[in-house]
């Protein structure tokens, strides 16, 4: 898609946003920097909230923006944050899956992923135990339930906002939330990740 057709076709895109996108697509570093600064914190925060370990958050953010700059021509209007959230959610899901595969192989060969563990241990002091446990549970949840749970329980978004972001009807959000809560509690119980919280209550 050319820049001209992009601008012409997506009439729903605000002019200021369209201008930014067109310049980004043209390779304007200033525009890209502007775009990045506007959404970098959102992406980093979303990635972390969706259960990405801190040591992988920057990797996810880099991937999200790489994809965004490459596929900017495919943006067809709406909120840019929603579009970026979708990309971020996909990348986080991919990282969760890759991590599970790595851990499975590590268990199979009786060898823990040394580099990651070391890295984790180095940064363990800087992150809170609760975050680790939440991340661990979120990583085991299905992508759809994870999204809804994070956006509602952690980010505190409304049902309508979540529906718009994940692209489903509001009723579906509540249904997913119901199941997501149960799944979160079930995984937490099974992995004994809720114990400390219980004792704290």
């Amino acid at each position, binding site marked *: 898609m050319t820049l001209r057709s992009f601008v012409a076709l997506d009439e729903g895109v605000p002019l200021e946003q369209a201008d930014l996108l067109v310049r980004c697509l043209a390779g304007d*570093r200033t525009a890209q*920097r502007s775009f*990045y*600064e506007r959404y*970098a*914190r959102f992406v*980093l*925060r979303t990635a*972390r*909230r969706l259960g990405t370990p801190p040591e992988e*958050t*920057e990797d996810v*953010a*880099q991937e999200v*923006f*790489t994809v965004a*700059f490459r596929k900017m021509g495919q943006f067809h209007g709406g909120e840019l944050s929603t579009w970026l959230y979708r990309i971020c959610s996909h990348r986080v899901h991919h990282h969760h899956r890759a991590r599970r595969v790595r851990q499975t192989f590590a268990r199979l060969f009786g060898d823990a992923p040394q580099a990651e563990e070391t890295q984790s241990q180095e940064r363990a002091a800087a*992150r*809170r135990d*609760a*975050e680790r*446990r*939440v991340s661990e549970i979120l990583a085991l949840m299905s992508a759809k339930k994870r999204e809804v749970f994070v956006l*509602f*329980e*952690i980010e*505190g978004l*409304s*049902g309508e906002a979540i529906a718009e972001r994940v692209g489903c009807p509001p*009723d579906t959000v*509540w249904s997913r*939330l119901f199941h997501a*809560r149960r799944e*979160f*509690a079930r995984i*937490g*119980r099974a992995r004994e*990740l*809720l114990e400390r*919280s*219980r004792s*704290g*209550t």
Partner: protein
Amino acid sequence: VKRIGRARPQPRPLRFTATSRDERAVANLVTELPDATPDDLSVERVWRRLQSPDPGPSRAWRWATASVLATALAVCAGLLWLETAKPKADILLAEGGLFSSASAASWAPARRGDPLAAGASVRSDRSGRGVLRVPGVAALILDTDADLALVRLGRSTVLRLERGAVTARVIKRSRGERFVLLAGDYTVTVVGTLFSVTNASDGRVAVSVNEGVVEVEGRGNLWRIEAGHRWSSDSSEVVVGSEISEARAALLAAAMSAPRSPELAGLFSAMVRADCVPTPVPPVAPDAPIPAEIPPAEAIVPPVAAAGLSQATSVRRRHGVASSPLLAAAEATTRRDERPEAPRPLTMNQPAIAPAPSPSTPVRERDYYAEALNLARHGEHSKAASVLTQALAAGRGPRDLELYQLALLKQRHLSDPQGALDSLQGYRKEFPGGALRQEVDLSIVESEVALGRSEAALAESARFLAQHPQSERADEVRVLRGDLLRQAGACEKAAAEYRAVSGGPALDDALYYWAYCQRQLGDSASAAAALRDYLVRFPAGRHLDAAREALGR
């Protein structure tokens, strides 16, 4: 419903509404989460990485290594699968001159259990026969003087019958799983059936179907042969009448079973016996000419169901009543071959390399065995026995068959049980592991009984039961032992023998005589109960009247 649902207040986060223990735990955990707002340093780091994207040689290297490893693993797994899934056939039974070759280059005697891969060939000479199995697909009887090549084994099975005859049982094939038998210019395609194919040495092909449907394609035509019909290439007509004996069908059914059936050897010998024993001569016109001379063995179709012609057709042909143009042509071939100045030329279908002794080498010597069979079929048993005695003295032909056939003639037609016993003992001595061993052992028991030597008969029958415990004739032998013991007055032992009979036709005698023995032993109640049981089980039994009389009915 939706409207009502929307009217309800929206859920609130658990940290405000948690009630259960789990919900409170989840809420606490979520509340404890630190602020996830990234610091400026992190934002700047990501931007720098975006500006100078590191191609990540280590990551690329990891991917490359993983790809290579995965490919190698897939190749190894594929090779392993190909090796294990390589379709194979095997030789279930081998008798006489049976040879196999992996590549048609070097021939070696085939033994039971020899594996056969695609590309292998199996060949039998005039004394050889074999049962082949393509696991899960088919079982085949390779007759004497036959040559079969396994062209392809696997999802589709393709065999090529160079000459001779095979009888095959093929399991029902699904679409795409073809079973094809190439014979000369014709292609026999099988859906799932019991059939036989003959490829005569001059290129004529005959197909006989017992079960299922077979399609024959060749020379631009297609024939569909259904169960109970046969077809030959010279007449190109499908006619009623299949030529596969029950013994062959039973043998093939047993050969199809996945674990090797213990009955195989017995069924094989029964098939050989069925092929050898003269069948009732079909009605022949009084003026039908009977050849004064027996044609040379090589010139006729081999005696034991050879060249795919069954006993009945062979008999008809020898009486000059050809049942089909193929047989008539075969007759013509026979007469042509009898002319000394016209030796049969090798045809395209004959193998270029033959095992020693070559089954296709023209032999002009007298075939005593065929001659004897022919005489026996015409009721000239003395002459047949004489010819077989000459054959044994001359050391020609299939000695095991000759010995057994001579014994049968003496036992059943010449009232010479001692002579029969001598022949049978000779067989047992010369062929201790012969395919006819079980039949020979049984005939020895019968001969001893005929000679009135009960003790010897009992000893031989005990030996038979010990050596062939799974024999289908075991129950008959038990009844025979019971009779011998009963006649000797040992009713208790006789009753034990009768009681050991497991079922089948022998149970008729066993049950009645068991009751008889019980009465002799003084147990009238058991005897009466057994007789009542007999009347129920065998309402048309052999001892029906006697049982009724004994019960006072």
